[in-house]
């Protein structure tokens, strides 16, 4: 796909072929606009790419789980007809414990209850009620995904109207649940889970997913909101989880196909050097090669700080706005390790003869090393002062169990999210300390999957610095801006600019830095396209 654009004028230029850029492109093209997507890298997908990192392997270098992808977008763009295959693992989380036991949380609640009972009978009884409450709340939040935030404090009836169904959903919860919803949103997930459960293993397994992408421990206010956010598409669960056959790249390819079939043009290996301004209006882009392409509208899938500082240029913006962009809270949260393994690791605790090895079935969801919430908090403690946690939380996926085609026969792909990895290390640079990550991970895993070190054929480490450098994730922030309560809705990405528009006419944002935020949801691209069509119809 590496070729220069065919024309020099389009209706819309989308900068960046991340999943949101492609959703925006597909929606706009479908509406009859002439769309060009320019992607700096050779592969499309941005932080949702699948790449042949090791020979014969299809490695997700960014997101691995598409559980949050909005089903309505998949349906609208006919992705399943384009070869998209969802893989739903029967297990959500398998959490081996230091004492040799393990807790498996299945998609089937009844099976989970039986597992939880081994840790706590009370918790087992409460678990279904917990899931029920979570699903009541996510039903309200789900509505907000595809609605554009109103530009508070200014009030326009037209902007508020789309929020009516969400408000009604909230009201429909009933008075008591509605109050409960407002109460829990701002709570630390640690307090929320303490109210429900007593088992450390259960609380650790649930809490770990809720801080994903955030540089916050479970005792931080607002982490209950992120728990609910990550559960948005879960039918009956605390975490939305759905893999894609062939890796995330297949989802992205299906999106690209949808865009192209509607006439959008996608050019990879073409970096945008600058957004061209004409009288304070975005008029097109200048590519790194010097070529200028004009358009009625430019949409940036890039992180806002990059968009405004690198592509627009701060001198072209008002000082107050520049200050706000500078103040967007960006934090890295994780590092990614990928291993090519010559055999499937044995998950069992060393020295626990009576312990049964984990079944293949148990291993095909997320394997979580997070035996308690304090373990998570302590990992954050080390990271917040610029250290690398010596006891990291690990969120591991073995995609080859359900999708053997992603590695050579008999071999396995293991993908590990390492929490927490601060962007700035206190004493050294990431390039100096990169190798330590593998040592720390192997030391931690040895206790749960003995002998894993000998199985490694290939390895790749992506530090927050790599995520920034290779994937345009400024400061390694996978969400283009932390999902704290202060950076949501009309505050996202910048206060007063929550409607995908920017101070420059003709320039829009469609990345994960906009409402509703992180994860492979497609919502930002989908909403941005709707707003653009409203303006240039």
């Amino acid at each position, binding site marked *: 796909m590496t070729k220069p654009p065919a024309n020099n004028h389009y209706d819309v230029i989308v900068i960046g072929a991340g999943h949101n850029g492609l959703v925006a492109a597909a929606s706009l093209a479908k509406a009859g606009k002439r769309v060009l997507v320019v992607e700096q890298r050779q592969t499309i997908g941005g932080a949702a790419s699948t790449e042949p990192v090791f020979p014969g392997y299809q490695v997700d270098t960014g997101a691995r789980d598409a559980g949050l992808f909005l089903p309505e977008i998949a349906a609208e763009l006919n992705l399943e007809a384009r070869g998209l295959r969802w893989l739903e693992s029967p297990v959500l989380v398998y959490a081996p414990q230091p004492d040799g036991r393990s807790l498996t949380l299945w998609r089937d609640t009844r099976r989970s209850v039986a597992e939880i009972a081994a840790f706590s009978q009370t918790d087992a009884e409460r678990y279904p009620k917990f899931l029920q409450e979570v699903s009541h709340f996510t039903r309200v939040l789900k509505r907000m995904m595809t609605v554009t935030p109103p530009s508070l404090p200014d009030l326009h009836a037209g902007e508020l109207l789309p929020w009516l169904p969400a408000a009604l959903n909230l*009201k429909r919860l009933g008075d008591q649940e509605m109050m409960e919803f407002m109460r829990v949103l701002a709570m630390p997930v640690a307090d929320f889970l303490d109210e429900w459960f007593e088992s450390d293993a259960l609380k650790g397994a649930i809490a770990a997913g809720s801080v994903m992408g955030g540089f916050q421990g479970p005792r*931080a*206010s*607002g982490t209950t909101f992120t728990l609910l956010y990550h559960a948005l598409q879960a039918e009956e669960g605390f975490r939305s989880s759905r893999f894609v056959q062939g890796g995330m790249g297949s989802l992205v390819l299906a999106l690209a196909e949808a865009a192209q079939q509607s006439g959008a043009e996608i050019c990879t290996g073409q970096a945008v050097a600058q957004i061209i301004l004409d009288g304070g209006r975005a008029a097109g882009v200048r590519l790194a090669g010097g070529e200028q392409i004009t358009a009625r509208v430019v949409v940036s899938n890039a992180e806002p700080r990059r968009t405004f500082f690198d592509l627009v240029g701060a001198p072209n913006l008002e000082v107050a706005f520049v200050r706000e962009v500078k103040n967007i809270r960006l934090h890295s949260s994780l590092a990614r390790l990928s291993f090519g393994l010559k055999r499937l690791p044995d998950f069992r605790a060393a020295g626990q003869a009576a312990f049964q090895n984990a079944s293949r079935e148990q291993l095909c969801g997320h394997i979580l090393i997070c035996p308690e919430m304090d373990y998570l908090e302590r990992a954050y403690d080390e990271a917040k*002062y610029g250290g690398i946690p010596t006891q990291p939380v690990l969120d591991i996926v073995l995609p080859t169990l359900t999708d053997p085609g992603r590695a050579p026969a008999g071999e396995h792909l293991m993908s590990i999210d390492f929490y927490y990895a601060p962007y700035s290390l206190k004493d050294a640079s990431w390039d100096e300390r990169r190798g330590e990550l593998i040592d720390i991970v192997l030391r931690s895993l040895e206790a749960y999957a003995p002998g894993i070190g000998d199985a490694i054929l290939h390895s790749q480490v992506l530090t927050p610095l790599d995520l920034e450098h290779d994937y345009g994730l400024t400061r390694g922030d996978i969400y283009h801006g932390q999902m704290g309560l202060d950076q949501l809705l009309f*505050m996202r990405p910048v206060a007063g600019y929550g409607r995908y528009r920017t101070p420059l006419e003709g320039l829009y944002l469609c990345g994960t830095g906009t409402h509703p935020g992180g994860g492979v949801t497609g919502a930002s691209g989908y909403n941005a396209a709707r707003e653009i069509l409203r303006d240039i119809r």
Partner: protein
Amino acid sequence: MPSEYDAIVIGGGHNGLVTAAYLARAGKKTLLLERRHILGGSSVTEEIYPGFKFTVFSYVVSLFRPEIIRDLDLTRHGLMILPLESTLTPLPNGDYLYRGADHYETYRNVARFSQRDADIYEDYSRMMYFMAKAVKYVLGIVPPDPTSLNPAELNALLGMARHFLGLERDQFYTLVRLMTMSSADFLSRWFESEPLLGTLSASGIIGTFMGPRSPGTAYVLLHHYMGEIDGVFRAWGFSKGGTGGIADALASSGRALGVEIRTQAPVAQVIVKDGKAVGVALESGEELHARVVVSSLDPNQTFLKLIDPGILPDELTASLRRFVYRGSSGKVNLALDAAPDLACLPGPGAHLRGAISISPSIDYIERAYDDAKYGNLPQHPYIDAIIPSMIDPGMAPPGKHVMSCFVQYAPYQLREGNWDEKREAFGDIVVDTLAEYIPNLKDIILHRQVLTPLDIERTTGLSEGNIFQGELSLSQLFFLRPAPGVAKYTTPVGNYYQCGSAVHPGGGITGAPGKLAAQVILKDW
């Protein structure tokens, strides 16, 4: 049986006294009952050692509502707030940050650490002043119920929406940030120098078991900016005679208005008949009857001890049991043989009449929190010390001094051991930490009173030693304080009301819950 009183107020803390005075002022025959021998609750001055008067618990004022001072004529009843004009932050390297009443001196001091911080300091103060003014409105309203569709509630909600949406854009966004961010993140939008960030962020953690990097602490920061003295926002003061002076003035005003006050009269139970409170039974067995009973105690006592929780709806009892107290602070009061001498600023000086804040950086405070959150005693705690005798010489014998040290964090729940065993170790940590900056301290200590969260709970009745009668976290504010359905000063028991810090607008010596409760009671009358 006819009631002997119109109203009985349980608890002689400052809020109870405010409610009682307002009720008497409206002509109600009011009785106030206090368990201890002195009035004030947490705002007491006690002569623990002969000649040395300690502001035992609460030690500074700022948040007290000026309209209450006017309404109850407290100045005539002896209330006198002396300004506390400066904050000194001594640093481990021997340097210091001094911020005082003299604008240029403060500017020069801040500029020594960062010119940019000095330049923006005034803007920041002005911004917080306006934010406090914008939020002041909320201090004066009874929280509306957002779930209700009743026209009065909707109207109140609309009024509130109008107020906030009517703010200027920048103020509106700043308010959203104050409600959601951590004090560290919020302040980092403005400042860069460690001592200034550390000291300002400390206002965000007072009384709260969160670190400066925990979201939600920016609200606590704002809460502490809402104070005004004589209409001057964010001024801190010291009550002449200690914080007990406030209780004394309130009691005197109350008595003048007709309040009958009985100390050493612990209440065992609120007497409920047919779903209505009709009086109280004292621990002595004596029964007193009234048309209305008001509790200024925290929800643990108001709902779960003074009445039979069995008569409450199950959901409410469950909510109240979930209410987070989590005491986070302790207090060390020292009687000193001479004036403390700071290494960074030796000798006497205006800095001794202000606050001395051991808060060299955000990380310093955050690390103290890290220790405490796992139930350990921090070796290097945040300390806010004042020397009341420097401001009001009557607090100590001539030439001698008292020093009041607020210490955080002191976790109520210890991982190992108990507070009775750890009390002196805690006192040692505080003295050792202070002695690093005040070299003569250990030589001049005559007496030391160490108050752990457990001691605070035992003496004042504050559950888990939480000075705000419940954490000021987002999920425990406004219509959620202390629980949905009981945030309007009422309770499910007829004629039984709440007026303490556990109801909106929360803790600190504000008098606001007391006044709002009186308003609600009188409206219902």
